[in-house]
């Protein structure tokens, strides 16, 4: 495996991301227009009982390896919980109802699975959810798990606010509306809005929705949203490994099917990047796309000046502006600080 990825390779992943998402996202935005009634700037403030802190949650493997939800429940965290769509099902199955669910990926058939797909039986067979570690509950008994998720989202949907990017597939929007989930819209900033042929400006001109930096994926967007829109501080993140735990088979990685088309089986590991985590003294590995996500997030943290509290307890996100912290320590400190402010 490599030890890093150069700038040119990162640019290629960035270009591929733009090409894969921009035009389809614009077409989705056109179809979603009738439902854009409220923006992320219309959100009511969080209640004072929530305090000033937030936890943003992505669906990386540490969420399950470190039993993050159990810690949040055990310590009765009362701050704001912002989750990427991929982490919502895990929360609901464990009796935790997030305050906000962030949805940004315009993929036409995968994203609806996080909300329970009413049309799963008629979809072409796809091993995306069976194969990987984002939500292990979906690795087996897909139909039963999907039915369970439909029921849970229908039951609790009205309690969660969806932070919906305009580019998201219309089937996801329909599913959220069906479940009674309130939608608050935003445009993803995809390129330089000051450039004359800017895609971001085109989206803005179409929708009139405010535009927000994404960080490249739902987990990063959740953390940015908690800082930028909710103005929470401090904001920790969990489940954001942006990599694979030691021992994870390459075949279980997100881009395996793409990479195996280009690398022979015996050289496939050359496509991946190893990253040593000094806090855990473990060597994790990542693929080019996750490495790009990692670089995006490091760039956002550095450029924003916000401190990111990494309570994932695993993964590859280490760098300037990122404070590594155990989740129970973060929660206990926030509860203590809240109690002190309540007394004073």
């Amino acid at each position, binding site marked *: 495996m490599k030890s890093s990825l*150069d700038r*040119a*390779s990162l*640019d*290629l*992943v*960035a*270009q*591929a*991301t*733009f*090409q*894969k*998402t*921009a035009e389809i*996202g614009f077409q989705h935005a056109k179809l979603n227009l009738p439902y854009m009634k409220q923006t992320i*700037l219309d959100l009511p403030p969080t209640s004072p009982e929530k305090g000033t802190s937030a936890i943003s949650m992505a669906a990386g493997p540490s969420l399950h390896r470190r039993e993050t939800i159990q810690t949040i429940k055990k310590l009765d965290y009362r701050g704001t919980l912002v989750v990427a769509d991929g982490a919502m099902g895990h929360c609901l199955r464990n009796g935790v109802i997030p305050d906000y669910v962030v949805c*940004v*990926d*315009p*993929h036409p058939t995968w994203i609806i699975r996080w909300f329970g797909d009413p049309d799963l039986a008629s979809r072409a067979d796809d091993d995306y959810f069976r194969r990987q570690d984002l939500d292990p509950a979906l690795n087996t008994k897909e139909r039963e798990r999907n039915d369970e998720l439909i029921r849970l989202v229908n039951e609790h949907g009205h309690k969660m606010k969806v932070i919906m990017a305009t*580019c998201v597939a219309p089937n996801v929007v329909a599913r959220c509306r069906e479940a009674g989930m309130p939608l608050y819209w935003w445009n993803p*900033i*995809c*390129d*330089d*809005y*000051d*450039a*004359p042929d800017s*895609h*971001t400006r085109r989206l*803005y001109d179409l929708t*009139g929705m*405010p*535009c*927000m*930096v*994404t960080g*490249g*994926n739902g987990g*990063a967007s959740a953390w940015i949203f908690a*800082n*930028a*829109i909710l103005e929470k501080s401090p904001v920790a993140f969990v489940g954001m490994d942006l990599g694979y735990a030691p021992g994870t088979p390459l075949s279980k990685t997100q881009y395996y099917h*793409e*990479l195996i*088309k*280009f690398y022979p089986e015996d050289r496939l590991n050359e*496509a991946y990047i190893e990253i040593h985590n000094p806090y855990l003294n473990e060597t994790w590995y990542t*693929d*080019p796309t996750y490495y*790009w*996500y990692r670089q995006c997030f490091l*760039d*956002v943290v550095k*450029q*924003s*000046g*916000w401190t990111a509290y990494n309570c994932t307890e695993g993964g590859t996100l280490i760098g300037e502006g990122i404070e590594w912290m155990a989740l129970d320590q973060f929660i206990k400190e926030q509860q203590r600080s809240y109690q002190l402010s309540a007394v004073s």
Partner: protein
Amino acid sequence: MAKLIGNYTVPGQTAENGTSGQVDATEREKAEGAHQAQVSEFERRAMGKLGGSIAFVMKGKNVLWTGDKAASSKGTGHEK
């Protein structure tokens, strides 16, 4: 001009229209030459298939942009 990160030139878009708007043709050619040298065609083809969830750009410290109205972009309040 605010620093732009997460940036790249989309094929079909000129550099002037693209990201920095400051790179002249010679510099662009040089950069492209280096780019070609750095990444083999084999890897280029692979990387071109590995797009992520959503594109990413951050301009200066602005995390929010609401059009060209006055005070339309919201920064992080941490200017360095």
